[in-house]
């Protein structure tokens, strides 16, 4: 379950995934490229947790640069239990080793893993938690997130890590960051029919159960149609791949990380280091991303994806005129087996459910196996809602 394990006497224990940079231990981002890499700097969010008394109890593996389904591409190997893929950081919380997991949500594996573990996670509003000291992949959408057993654990840890950071140019003001923890309440929820349709019966049952629980708690839930949000995935895959391609260019075998032994000139050093170190999913993402940014395709593909990002946000905001949050699944099924990973690119379709919050930067809370996406700065209200509604984990 761990790449590194630490002893800690701290009352509150935090586990960090391998996208969170630490100075005293390896942060390999799940890759052969960064196997053994020790950072010169430490994640701002982790430093804040440590300062608040949390003790780091371990580092957990992630898929290569955290873009896969559930860690199956990790250089440390897939993490499974009884044939089911598990998110290692979620399992560290579930088994009670850690009170909270500090993770980077890049392509939804955090939310899928949380849903399948029956835990609670919060992906806060983009810009409220510093990304300083996290391995960059898809900077315009990835967010430092938390997994916990209860909404309260998540909220407590979130109140520690949220806040302005001068070292992150996209970091918002303290006032806005803090407002995300205290603003509003959830009274009406829109259930996104278009999103639920493709999910299996277990997932649909989770959605139904959650809707019933909402109603029992006096929260209204209405099914609505949508033709825009469901398009997020295609646009997100373009933006994520393009940014990934650019961000992993720095791993070229020259300065640190994996270097091939098989080269006689600079071009071979670059090409062979990267060819030997990167896995198939990552290489595909790099090629795809590079292509979307080419002079030929930039306007046709990348620029259009940026426009879709805006249109999706507008669609959400239109819904938020009437509703306080949107309910949708976090994944299409409640268990992934190793057989599922035969499709190397499943994460590029399963992110149908996670792309909407990633591309818009809206907060998303996963609980009871389902996902709530709320207005910007409403994660506190979302957590309060699942705290009231969710019977699991209490």
């Amino acid at each position: 379950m761990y790449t590194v394990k630490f002893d800690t006497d701290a009352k509150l224990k935090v586990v960090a995934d391998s996208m969170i940079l630490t100075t005293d231990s390896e942060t390999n981002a799940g890759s052969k490229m960064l196997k053994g890499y020790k950072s010169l700097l430490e994640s701002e969010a982790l430093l804040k947790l440590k300062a608040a008394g949390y003790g780091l109890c371990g580092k957990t593996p992630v898929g290569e640069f955290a873009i896969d389904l559930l860690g199956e591409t990790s250089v440390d190997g897939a993490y499974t239990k009884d044939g089911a893929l598990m998110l290692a950081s979620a399992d560290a919380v579930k088994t009670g080793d850690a009170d909270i997991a500090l993770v980077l949500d890049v392509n939804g594996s955090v939310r899928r893993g949380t849903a399948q573990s029956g835990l609670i996670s919060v992906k806060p509003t983009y810009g409220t938690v510093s990304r300083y000291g996290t391995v960059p992949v898809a900077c315009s959408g990835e967010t430092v997130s938390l997994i916990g057993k209860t909404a309260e654990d998540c909220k407590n840890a979130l109140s520690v890590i949220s806040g302005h950071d001068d070292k992150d140019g996209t970091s918002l003001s303290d006032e806005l960051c803090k407002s995300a923890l205290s603003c509003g309440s959830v009274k009406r929820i829109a259930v996104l029919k278009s999103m639920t349709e493709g999910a299996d019966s277990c997932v649909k049952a989770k959605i139904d159960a959650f809707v019933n629980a909402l109603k029992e708690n006096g929260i209204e839930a209405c099914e609505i149609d949508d033709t825009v949000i469901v398009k997020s995935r295609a646009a997100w895959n373009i933006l994520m791949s393009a940014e990934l391609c650019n961000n992993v260019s720095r791993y070229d075998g020259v300065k640190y990380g994996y270097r091939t032994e098989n080269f006689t000139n600079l071009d071979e050093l670059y090409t062979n280091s990267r060819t030997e170190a990167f896995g198939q999913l990552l290489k595909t993402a790099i090629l795809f991303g590079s292509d979307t940014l080419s002079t030929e395709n930039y306007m046709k593909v990348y620029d259009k994806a940026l426009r879709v990002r805006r249109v999706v946000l507008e669609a959400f905001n239109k819904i938020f005129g009437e509703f306080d949050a949107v309910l949708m699944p976090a994944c299409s099924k409640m268990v992934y087996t190793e057989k599922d990973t035969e499709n190397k690119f499943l994460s590029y379709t399963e992110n149908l459910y996670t792309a909407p919050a990633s591309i818009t930067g809206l907060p998303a809370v996963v609980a009871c196996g389902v996902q709530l996406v709320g207005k910007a700065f409403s994660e506190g209200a979302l957590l309060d809602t699942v705290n009231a509604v969710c019977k699991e984990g209490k």
Partner: protein
Amino acid sequence: MRYETVIGLEVHCELATDSKIFCSCSAHSYGAEPNSHVCPACCGMPGMLPVVNKRVVDYGMKAGLMLNCHINRVTTFDKKSYYYPDLPAAYQTTQWFAPVAVNGLVEIETSKGKKNVRIKQIHMEEDAGKLVHDIREDTTHVDFNRTSVPLIEIVSQPDLSSAEEVEAYLERLKTLLRYARVAECEMAHGTMRCDVNLSVRPEGSDKLGVRTEMKNMNSIEAIKRAIEYETSRHIDAIENGTEVLVQETRRWDDIKGKSYAMRSKETAGDYRYFPDPNVMPVVIDDKWFDEISESLPEFPEVKRERYMSEYGLSEYDSEQLAKSIALCECFEDAYSVCGSAKDAANWMLSEVMSNLNARQMTYDMLTLNGKALGELITLVVDGKVGRANAKKILNAMFDDASVSPAEYAEKNGFVISNDTGLMDSVIKTMVAADPKAVADYKSGKEKAIMAIYGKCMKELKGNCDPQTLRTKLIEYINSL
């Protein structure tokens, strides 16, 4: 057939900010130990995020305004991707979609008269590091001191047509950017670099010929040689079919005096520009814009004219002072205190200049406190400090900008005494000691008195009014 050369320039200038563009490392590493001015951010390590140095945007705007550009009130940064070992993150953060300044105009003057050169755009970007080739070991080392040092790239329209115009244009850019104190622009230090885009066409034609881009010129003289070489290479190809011209990037070899095509691999490629998601668009509001506009200096011509018309300085003196903003500011400060433009100009162009020369300082390096210089001039004019001692005080002021001339004079006994009793007794002693000079003077050799005068002055350590001393000395001798 007669041909004309069409030239456009891409000029890179290092901005004179204290720190780098996206981190707090010092931007001044000229001559420093390799990799001594680096941090994980400018080394492109994972986890560091760029935070824009506001001063860089200030300077970018100033440069834009000095070159009569329109300032984009929302200016953005973009990533330019390519692989090279001196580029640690394998992308350069630059401005592609919305550069800070566009559509400018620079007036140049050559032997053929005045001409306007249009500026297409000025964008801000980070510099790359340096590769150091070690021939003995047959290895290459990377020095990241220069990575992320802020640059502006000034892109002109193809409005230049000769080496002379290019020289005038570059000199003009230098003057204007130095005036705004945004860049050193010293080609020898690499703080100004220039790529030349050149094509040749029959005179009067409106169709552009095949364009080549030349890099690697390290001085204005080298640029001029490269332009002359490349022009004749193009004409030769057109007239005599010596070669087929292709659009390409060429490296200038100043020792051989020739340009060579760079390997296509070095130049081909798609930079895959896209907006940097880690750098928010920079919004320049009215307050910021006004602050920068108001901080701009007068143009050199305006200063020169004003010094002549308003202060009554000679054309030559005005021209000399207007050469450097540092001289102008020091002069204006001195004038504001001493009240005489002529005295202030005289001190600037004689004593201040000779101090600069003695210290091998450029005009722009002048840090002398102009107001203090004004005080010093006043002390001399009021007869409180002798000229020779004033020079000593100025020397001390050069060494330490906090020196107060009045205090320094007091402390070192340079203040001219009004104690006529002392002067009288010194005169008496010196006259008694040199009866021959007195006799000579009395027999009509007026110059003989100067020997005694000098001895008196020396005895008084220069602290007396020369005219009073002279008058008193003559009176005393005549009374004998």
